[in-house]
């Protein structure tokens, strides 16, 4: 079926449900300004990232690096040093991208930050390998040794060098286990533990930078740069990945209030806590949850809020809600969560929020469990009645989770709503039901004005890619598409 449930009518006020306080609609042009500012921040981050690599090399030059090139051997050595400096700088940038720094999250979003993090993996490994090889050749040439004996010499003779070799092996292990082909063969937990070795790899690489390389030598410019970037990276990782989650967990004191069935294999987990007013506006964004029960506490779950936090007591007391589908062994346990289980949280993360808006009009396209964060966003993101459209896709009506709540919200806020059900189309527009495509419907038929709207897409990766391709063809520009990976 392909049902238009609601026409684009102004908000019907007599819904009979407790009245939502509708979000304040900002002045025209506000979203454009917000977008420009975000792009400015993106450019700033780009400049900082490039400039940091340039600075690492420039400071070496400033300390007379280029003046040491007096022979072919010295040329190899210098190239090796430059590769090492750039490699180390990239590794630190990768750690910063994965540190969940709010400024980065607010600007490009958690998933894009991790995407860049992944893209830097191979280049930094290549630079570090080049660093090792070039120096073995350069040092070897200076002493008349072949690179292999020189490497053995370095290992045996020079203090801290064996640690640097260990560090290199760890870096190789981390990058190899992150390759898509390799990663698929192992469970997430294995990859995660190997990935933690990155910190060991960085830690074991630092001694030789002190004793053999001159990165921290007194009287050099480099010393201050490397001290600053290392200390900043270290503290950012410790603060945002460890300290802040602990503080948030203590601050909100979340416990499981109830688990209610939504559909077969899908539940709402409602949590009670305090100071939830501080989390206002986070509906749709995701948190990483840990349910502190035996056998579960170590398993992190990235779930988006499926409703805006509800505050109804003193000190911001209230409830949060996530909607979860039984996807794996980890999620299966969640269906049987006990009331009163304590919950640790990290977040909010991601840009599936009003912060990503660039236009006044909004389109939300969700499939399966991906519908649920859109439900929360629909509650809070500002638009005038008639300027929003919601498309829900599922095999059957039953798979359109929270459809009744969404219907109520659409009625209250004046939103066009379509339920797209039935078997999927083969051939073009595979994100649509077969019936719609056969009848000649495309994205534009549902949302004629889509090219002037922000398009939020949430659902399985292949499905979402298909939606995004269609949206692009309909004239939606890249910055208007807001998509977050959901199939973790």
């Amino acid at each position, binding site marked *: 079926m392909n049902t238009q449930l609601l026409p684009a009518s102004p908000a019907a006020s007599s819904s009979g449900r407790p009245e939502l306080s509708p979000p304040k609609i900002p002045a025209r042009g506000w979203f454009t300004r917000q977008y420009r500012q975000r792009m400015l921040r993106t450019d700033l981050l780009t400049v900082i990232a490039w400039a940091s690599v340039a600075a690492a090399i420039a400071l070496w030059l400033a300390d007379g690096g280029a*003046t040491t090139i007096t022979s072919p051997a010295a040329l190899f050595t210098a190239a090796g040093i430059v590769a090492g400096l750039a490699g180390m700088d990239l590794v630190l940038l990768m750690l910063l991208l994965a540190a969940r720094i709010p400024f980065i999250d607010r600007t490009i979003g958690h998933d894009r930050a991790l995407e860049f993090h992944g893209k830097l993996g191979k280049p930094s490994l290549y630079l570090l390998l080049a660093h090792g090889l070039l120096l073995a050749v350069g040092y070897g040439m200076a002493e008349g040794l072949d690179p292999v004996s020189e490497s053995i010499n370095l290992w045996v003779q020079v203090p801290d060098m064996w640690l640097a070799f260990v560090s290199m092996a760890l870096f190789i292990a981390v990058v190899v286990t992150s390759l898509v082909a390799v990663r698929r063969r192992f469970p997430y937990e294995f990859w995660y533990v190997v990935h933690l070795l990155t910190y060991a790899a960085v830690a074991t690489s630092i001694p030789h930078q002190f004793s053999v390389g001159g990165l921290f030598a007194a009287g050099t410019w480099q010393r201050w740069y490397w001290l600053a970037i290392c200390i900043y990276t270290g503290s950012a990782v410790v603060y945002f990945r460890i300290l802040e989650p602990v503080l948030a967990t203590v601050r909100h004191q979340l416990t499981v209030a109830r688990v209610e069935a939504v559909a077969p294999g899908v539940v709402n987990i409602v949590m009670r806590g305090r100071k939830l007013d501080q989390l206002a506006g986070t509906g749709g964004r995701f948190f990483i949850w840990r349910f502190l029960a035996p056998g579960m506490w170590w398993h992190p779950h990235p779930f988006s809020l499926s409703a805006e936090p509800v505050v109804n007591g003193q000190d911001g007391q209230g409830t949060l809600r996530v909607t979860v589908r039984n996807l794996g062994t980890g999620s299966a346990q969640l269906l049987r969560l006990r009331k009163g289980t304590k919950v640790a949280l990290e977040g909010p993360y991601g840009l599936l929020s009003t912060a990503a808006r660039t236009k006044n009009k909004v389109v939300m396209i969700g499939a399966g469990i991906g519908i649920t964060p859109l439900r929360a966003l629909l509650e809070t993101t500002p638009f005038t009645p008639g300027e929003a459209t919601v498309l829900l896709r599922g095999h059957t009506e039953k798979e359109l989770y929270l459809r009744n709540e969404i219907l109520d919200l659409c009625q209250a806020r004046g939103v066009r709503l379509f339920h797209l059900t039935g078997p999927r189309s083969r051939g073009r527009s595979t994100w649509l039901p077969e019936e719609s495509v056969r009848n000649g419907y495309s994205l534009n038929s549902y949302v004629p004005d889509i090219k002037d709207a922000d398009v939020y897409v949430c659902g399985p990766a292949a499905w979402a890619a298909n939606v995004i391709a269609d949206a692009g063809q309909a004239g939606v520009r890249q910055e208007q598409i807001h998509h977050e990976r959901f199939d973790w």
Partner: protein
Amino acid sequence: MKIRGTVAAALASAGILLAGWQTGTQAGGISTVASNTTAAGAPGATGTGTSGSAGSAGSSSSSGTTGSSGSAGSGPSSSSNASGTYKGTTVQTRFGPVQVQITVANGKITDVTALQLTNTDGKSIQISNRAAPLLKSKVLAAQSANVQTVSGATITSDAYLTSLQAAIDAANL
């Protein structure tokens, strides 16, 4: 917008690199400790570069100082109470060349000067600056190259002592 960011980043990086290059070449980097201060003016210490490699002394333990090149200072042989200055071989290490010169008066080493010391980077220079005075006083006390290396400066020490041994050989002490 993406182009703007990339262009800005490229320009900033180029500027930073250029500034670094300028600073590095104008300041000439960090000054090295070694300098040719002692003039080899004493009688008898005339020629350098006649005899071949005196690097055999360096084949001891350290392969960090294996390759030795250059020339040993050749003073007038025979007498054990030679006087003058004698240059050791230039020993190549992975952190730069090392060469020392000794001043001999009446068969005694009265001074050791480092003509070149490991200097490839800030850290090497730091190590050299620390090790050279220690080695010098040890050598002056022992009157030979058979002294302990300075810990944390093994490569510099080995090269220093190898070059020193060559200079001692050249002086026929």
